[in-house]
């Protein structure tokens, strides 16, 4: 249940810094247009997500309501009826449907089909509340930005939208919460991209949609679940369980173990200590066992690539380098420094496994 019967909550998931401006353009323009159409609106960012870090999954919010908003100082959208993701890897890495209103919509900026996105949310308890999935290839914003771009305390120039404009057009088409005319009037320079988004968005009704679904509600509305305030300190060569960072990743390093000479240059260059050198057969066997104990994270049974290339499991194939996919942020330093170029970036979405659902406890 939303805070107010007529309140529409919109949550935009984005990558910290690189897409910060894009997400704010979407929420601000949406709120702006809805206000022009006579609604009461709010647009703001989630602060606890740490939007100041590159590739961190973050949220930006908009609220639209025909009557005055009853609780304007609630700082998160608990029950969005529209969820927008600026890339599809976010759907894989986060529970983007958490708290979604029955009959909600998911719009994802990706080149892939809505069917593919639906496949990614199949395991979520809230999937029966999702009515519609839409995808749109709105281009990418994964470029280094200038310091005034996605960083807090900065201002953005209106009328320079591209990806955001296309997403706004898609929102207008799929949900109808604002009209394309109003959006276009507000930002005439972006009219072309908005029309593009409006025309090319692909929609799909969720076959599992159940308007009477209440199964997942009990878990949702306890405002906070179990909170583990004390995370044990890590041991040497361990990891910090409080910050699982695998959902930062857009591209996954895949090592060609046949070419690799175990020169350790990627190992020494990884800021996240995610690369482990496999020493000898015994160590490899131990490492493989540890990899399996990770909870199927890097799933040896990944259909898309051989298990060895997937970074987990199988010591028998003579692997020399192991990538810790639970924590790898996909920054690209390893495939950039590799002197033999035997580490290749592969789109995270090409792997069926490796779904890391991260929900922060606080």
């Amino acid at each position, binding site marked *: 249940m939303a805070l107010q019967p007529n309140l529409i909550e919109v949550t935009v998931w984005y990558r910290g810094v690189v897409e910060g401006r894009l997400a704010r353009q979407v929420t601000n323009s949406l709120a702006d247009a809805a206000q022009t159409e006579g609604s009461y609106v709010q647009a703001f960012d989630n602060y606890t997500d740490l939007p100041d870090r590159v590739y961190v999954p973050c949220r930006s919010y908009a609220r639209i309501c025909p009557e005055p908003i009853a609780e304007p100082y609630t700082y998160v959208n608990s029950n969005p009826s529209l969820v927008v993701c600026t890339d599809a890897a976010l759907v894989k890495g986060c529970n983007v449907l958490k708290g979604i209103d029955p009959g909600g919509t998911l719009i994802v900026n990706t080149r892939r089909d809505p069917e593919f996105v639906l496949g990614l949310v199949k395991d979520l308890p809230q999937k029966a509340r999702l009515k519609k999935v839409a995808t749109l290839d709105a281009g990418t914003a994964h470029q280094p930005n200038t*310091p005034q771009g996605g960083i*807090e305390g900065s201002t953005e120039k209106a009328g320079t939208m591209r990806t955001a404009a296309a997403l706004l057009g898609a929102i207008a088409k799929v949900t109808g919460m604002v009209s394309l005319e109003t959006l276009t009037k507000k930002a005439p320079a972006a009219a072309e991209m908005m029309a593009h988004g409006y025309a090319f968005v692909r929609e799909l009704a969720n076959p599992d949609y159940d308007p009477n679904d209440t199964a997942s509600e009990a878990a949702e509305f306890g405002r906070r679940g179990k909170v583990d305030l004390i995370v044990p300190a890590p041991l*040497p060569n361990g990891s*910090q369980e409080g910050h699982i960072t695998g959902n930062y990743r857009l591209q996954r390093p895949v090592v060609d173990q046949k070419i690799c000479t175990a020169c350790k240059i990627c190992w020494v260059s990884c800021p*996240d200590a995610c690369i482990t050198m496999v020493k000898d057969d015994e160590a490899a066997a131990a490492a493989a066992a540890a990899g399996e104990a990770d909870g199927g994270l890097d799933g040896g049974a990944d259909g898309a690539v051989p298990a060895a290339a997937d970074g987990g499991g199988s010591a028998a194939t003579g692997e020399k380098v192991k990538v*810790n996919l639970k924590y790898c942020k996909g920054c690209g*330093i390893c495939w950039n420094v590799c002197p033999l170029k035997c580490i290749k970036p592969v789109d995270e979405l090409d792997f069926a496994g490796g779904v890391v659902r991260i929900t922060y406890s606080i």
Partner: protein
Amino acid sequence: MPETIKWLGSEAPTEVRIEGYQEIKNVKDAPDVEYYVPGHRTCAGCGPALAYRLTALASGKNTIFAGPTGCMYVANTSYLCGPWAVPWIHTQITNGGAVISGIEASYKAMIRKKKYDGEFPNIICFAGDGGSADIGLQALSGCMYRGHDVLFICYDNESYANTGIQTSPMTPYGAHTTFTPPGPVVPEGKKTFPKDLLKMVAAGHPAVKYLATASIAYPVDLMNKVRKALAHKGPTFMHIHAPCPKGWAFESSKTLDIGKLAVDTGMWTLYEIVNGQVKVNYAPRRRKPVAEYVQAQGRFGHLTPEMTERLQAFVDSKLAELGLLVPIPAV
């Protein structure tokens, strides 16, 4: 071999006392037990995080870290957990030096009172450029002056990156930060040239016998310098160049490339000062023009050729001081 720099006094060198440290010969020889483990919310491609990891690899188990406020405190410790497998303490951004002084003094007192008979720990303050060259300068200076047996490391990402890229005294001329945006009145962005922190510590603190600059693009050199500094009894200081993809506006995969480019262009130099004697560790064979470094980063995107020339002149004067001023080969 470059001669001793004038400002340090020429009669200083007596003996090089840094010995008894375990040298790392190459990458394969490096220790592989991580004390800065995965699981921290730093940016993808974070330079300072790599500096931290390499420092922790080199210093080993018997280490205590102090972390003044900055990226390496906030991003590492969000939500009540931290990625260190060794003791770590948060200090205010002003007082990193004071806290490590206290830790060192208390260990000495405990040993004197026979309450502690273990090995003396490596006490390291891992401060940002704000926590060492700007807000934390007085605590750094006090700590270095009193002669505690500690290592103070400044990881230099050339801005207050944690709060959203504000200018710091280490920000280079011409860089765009949210406090120095280029505009019609000040077209170059940042107008002033940065402090020289290593020189400042070296010139004003006679107790400090070992100082070094390092870069994350030269990891073995960095780790060896950490070990040398820790082997030395007394206050030591290191200044580590750590490119920041977010603040400098380059792709996260290019962190080490930018670090290398900084050394190749002379924007950063790798040298150490042992007992007042300067030793340059690496001089690029072919010096590159600063323009190449400038073009690789978004924060310099607005610079005109004249501004780049000013930056080049500044770099040239710095290199001349170290005796590294060689002509830039024509391309």
